[in-house]
C-alpha cells in the first residue's frame, strides 16, 4: 500500500496548492509575479533533481515543452486573475471541466467515436459555458 500513501500525500499537496492560489489572490499578490516565482522554483528544483537522476533533453521534448510551458504559464496567470473576483469553488470546478477539450480533440482528430455518456458530458459542458457567458459579475 506504499503507492496509496504517496498518492494520498500528492492528493493533499495538489489540493493545498490550489487552495494557496486562492489565499495568494486574497492577500493581493500580483498574478504574474507569483507565477514567475512558482515556475522558477519548480524548474530549479527539478533541474537539481535532474542533475542527480539524469536529464534527457531532445529537440522533440523542447518543442512539446515549449507549448506546455507557455500554456501552463497562461493558465496560472489567468486562474489567479479569475480567483480575484470569482469564488474558488466555481473557478476550480470549471477548470477541471476542461477535460471536454481533450474529448473534443479525440473525437475530431483521433477518430474516436461518441458514446451517449460522452455526448451528455459534452452537452452539459456547453450548457455550463453558455451560462458562464451570461455572467455579468
Amino acid at each position, binding site marked *: 500500500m506504499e*503507492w*496509496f500513501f*504517496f*498518492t*494520498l500525500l*500528492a*492528493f493533499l*499537496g*495538489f489540493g493545498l*496548492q*490550489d487552495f*494557496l492560489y486562492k*489565499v*495568494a489572490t486574497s*492577500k493581493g*499578490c500580483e498574478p*504574474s*509575479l*507569483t*507565477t*514567475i*516565482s*512558482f*515556475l522558477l522554483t*519548480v*524548474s530549479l*528544483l*527539478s533541474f537539481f533533481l*535532474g542533475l542527480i537522476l539524469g536529464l534527457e533533453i531532445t529537440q522533440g521534448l523542447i518543442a*512539446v*515543452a515549449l507549448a*506546455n*510551458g*507557455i500554456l*501552463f*504559464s*497562461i*493558465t496560472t496567470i489567468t486562474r489567479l*486573475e*479569475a480567483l480575484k473576483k*470569482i469564488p*474558488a*469553488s466555481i*473557478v*476550480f470546478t*470549471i477548470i477541471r*471541466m*476542461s*477535460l*471536454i*477539450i*481533450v474529448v473534443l480533440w479525440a473525437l475530431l482528430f483521433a477518430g474516436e467515436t461518441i458514446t451517449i455518456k460522452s455526448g451528455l*458530458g*459534452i452537452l*452539459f*459542458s456547453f*450548457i*455550463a459555458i453558455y*451560462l458562464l457567458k*451570461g455572467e455579468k459579475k
Partner: protein
Amino acid sequence: MKPYLWLLIAFISSGLIRIVVKLGSNFDPLSFITVSYFIGFLFALIVRKKAKRRLTKKVAGRSILFGLIIGLINFFSFFLQLNALSIGQASVIFPLTSLSVYVAVVLSILVFQGKGKFKEKFRYPILDNRYTSSRKLITFFSIFSRQLLL
C-alpha cells in the same frame, strides 16, 4: 478584463495543456517538467514586463513568497505522484489525485466564507443561497459533465 473572461482563457488553456501533456508523456517526465516550467517561467517574465504594473515592495515580496511556497508544494506533490506511479497503477492514481480540487474547495469554503458555524460554512454553491441561480447551474453542469466525460 472581465473576471469570467479570465476564467474562460484558463479553461481553454488548461484543456490544451491536457492534450500537450499527452504528447509529453512520450518523454522522460523529469526532463519534460524541467524544460516546461523553465519555458513557462520565461514566458511569465515577458508577460510581467509587458504588464508594467507598479508594485510596492510589500506586495512584490508577498507575491514572490507565495510563488515559492506554491512551487515547493507543487514539486513535492509531483515527485510523490511519480513515486506512486512507479509502483502503482496510473488508472487508479490519476483519478485519485485529480480529486484534489475538492481539498481546495473545502478549505476555501471553511476559510473564506465568514465565521459562522461549521455546518454553515460547509456549503457548496448548488445548495448555497448566497450564490445566484446561474452560478449554481454552472457548478451543477460542470460537475456532471466532468463525471460523464471521465
